């Protein structure tokens, strides 16, 4: 049921297949199997290529042109100058910092909070399914709705937060860091359930005997968590971390709804959206798109090679 549990099954290939692969000529049956496999997965391949691979290549091509939809006649090949423009513009770096701060803070808080939630869900007996049901509501709620809920809670003329905290007329959306604080709150509320369920899946895989043996050996509760539970959950933690980091890095909905990018709270996805859709500046916008894609590749690479995140469990191909 869980990724970790699925691994042994996935890792043990059918003996028949191994024998068959070594034969120089394919049997009728295996030829049929290959054909069936290819034709069953063909629709998935085609859709994924049309919607992502092709537009991405198109974006790379567009990024080499000066091209605005408002001035189609002015389309002109400019080489890499769009990239130079974007990378020398303080807006890109400002948005980069905003995205990085939101990503790091929310992922760290979510990881800690998510682990606590997973632990509670693992140990709680009365009302276990009630807790799991409750936690799924933020998971399922529309991100834009979550953004509005939090925005109006902090907004001066509608929100109760300042009254409750005795902060009078402090304007949360008046400055960069306080705006980001509210954005991060919404992000954390909405996505901690996801991370906590992934961690719960890892937690139930830790053998109970290990915990008990450590307890018999006199380990304190904290020692058991640090020395036994966490190391045994490493795979689940890394996978949760990778996907949440990339997800947070793409953040768009929350800043769009809460600040519309005011006070330097624009993120990289927001910048790509603004250049391409609002300003219809497809040349420079595509350069932003390609660079954004590149940052995601770098983050994935750091996790997979640097931290040795084992994705075979996620991919399910053993």
């Amino acid at each position, binding site marked *: 049921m869980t990724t970790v549990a699925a691994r042994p099954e996935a890792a043990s290939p059918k003996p028949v297949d191994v024998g068959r692969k070594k034969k120089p000529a394919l049997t009728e049956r295996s030829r049929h199997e290959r054909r069936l496999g290819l034709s069953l997965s063909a629709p998935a391949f085609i859709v994924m290529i049309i919607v992502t691979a092709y537009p991405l290549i198109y974006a790379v091509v567009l990024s080499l042109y000066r091209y605005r939809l408002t001035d189609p006649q002015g389309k002109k090949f400019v080489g890499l100058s769009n990239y130079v423009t974007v990378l020398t513009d303080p807006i890109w770096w400002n948005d980069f910092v905003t995205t990085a701060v939101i990503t790091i803070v929310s992922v760290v808080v979510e990881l800690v909070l998510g682990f606590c939630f997973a632990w509670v869900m693992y140990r709680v007996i009365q009302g276990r399914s009630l807790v799991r049901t409750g936690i*799924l509501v933020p998971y399922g709620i529309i991100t*834009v709705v979550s953004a509005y809920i939090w925005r109006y809670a902090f907004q001066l003329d509608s929100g109760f937060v300042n009254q409750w905290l005795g902060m009078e007329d402090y304007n949360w959306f008046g400055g960069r860091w306080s705006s980001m604080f509210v954005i991060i709150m919404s992000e954390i509320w909405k996505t901690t359930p996801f991370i906590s369920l992934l961690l719960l899946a890892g937690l139930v895989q830790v053998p109970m005997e290990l915990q008990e043996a450590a307890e018999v050996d006199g380990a304190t509760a904290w020692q058991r968590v640090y020395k036994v539970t966490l190391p045994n959950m490493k795979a689940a933690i890394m996978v949760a971390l990778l996907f949440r980091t990339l997800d947070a890095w793409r953040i768009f909905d929350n800043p769009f709804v809460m600040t519309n990018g005011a006070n330097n709270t624009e993120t990289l996805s927001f910048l790509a959206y603004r250049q391409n859709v609002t300003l219809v500046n497809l040349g420079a916008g595509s350069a932003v*798109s390609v660079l954004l894609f590149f940052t995601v590749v770098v983050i994935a690479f750091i996790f997979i090679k640097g931290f040795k995140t084992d994705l075979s469990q996620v991919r*399910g191909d053993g």
Partner: protein
Amino acid sequence: MASRRTSSWWTVWGLLILVWAAFPLAWMVSLSFKDPNTFRSSTPTFLPKDWSWANYDSVFSDSLFTSALRNSFGISIIATTLSVVVAMFAAYAIARLDFPLKKVLLSMALAIAMFPQAALVGPLFDMWRRLGIYDTWIGLIIPYLTFALPLSIWTMSAFFRQIPWEMEQAAQVDGATQWQAFRKVIVPMAAPGVFTTAILTFFFCWNEFLLATSLTSTDKARTVPAALTFFTGQSQFQSPITSIMAASVVVTIPVVIIVLLFQRRIVAGLTSGAVKG
């Protein structure tokens, strides 16, 4: 191991998690019942001073919201169905068959799960305008179906691996073709996994905002998350806040119902695929 006392402590912590999850929802509901003309104040309260249904009346009489609701349901349901069908074939092939490009398919799905959708809004915007599918249902269904595929493929192939495949072979021994064995024997056993995948995919489509706001421009295809950002008050002096909250309550109800009915399945599905769409 757990004495009665520690067990009740865990219950307290469980309650705190429930409060944490429910409190913002309570705020949303409360705000949606405030009077749109008088709720703004220099000292706002959590609960309404005068409870009012006015916001619900106004959102349901506003074509911006009702057409968005129709678009959201239509697009999400069609995209979910298509995605689940396409992914079902692929997941069957992955869980069951030995074929070239299997690793490529899985890696591609992984790459798409990590893909920054914002990097595609420019090229898709341009392509969709040329193809004439900008601001149409199909223009949103195609990317939704694609971005939901990785989640669908993983979740279903994880479920499919647990199916006793000997039954399929037995059917084949009895003279059924591989296709017949798949349709008559496997599909009924695979149905729960397919259903769970459909729920998660539906959540993804229901929630999506970036593409919805980039690839639509009118009521024709604008979904609820995108429409919410276009709300205005009934007059230029009226704030849209309470109406937005009433609309938010309406679109959260399906989520709450699905969660209440299928909590177990959703948890199983989320932890089997280990990936969010």
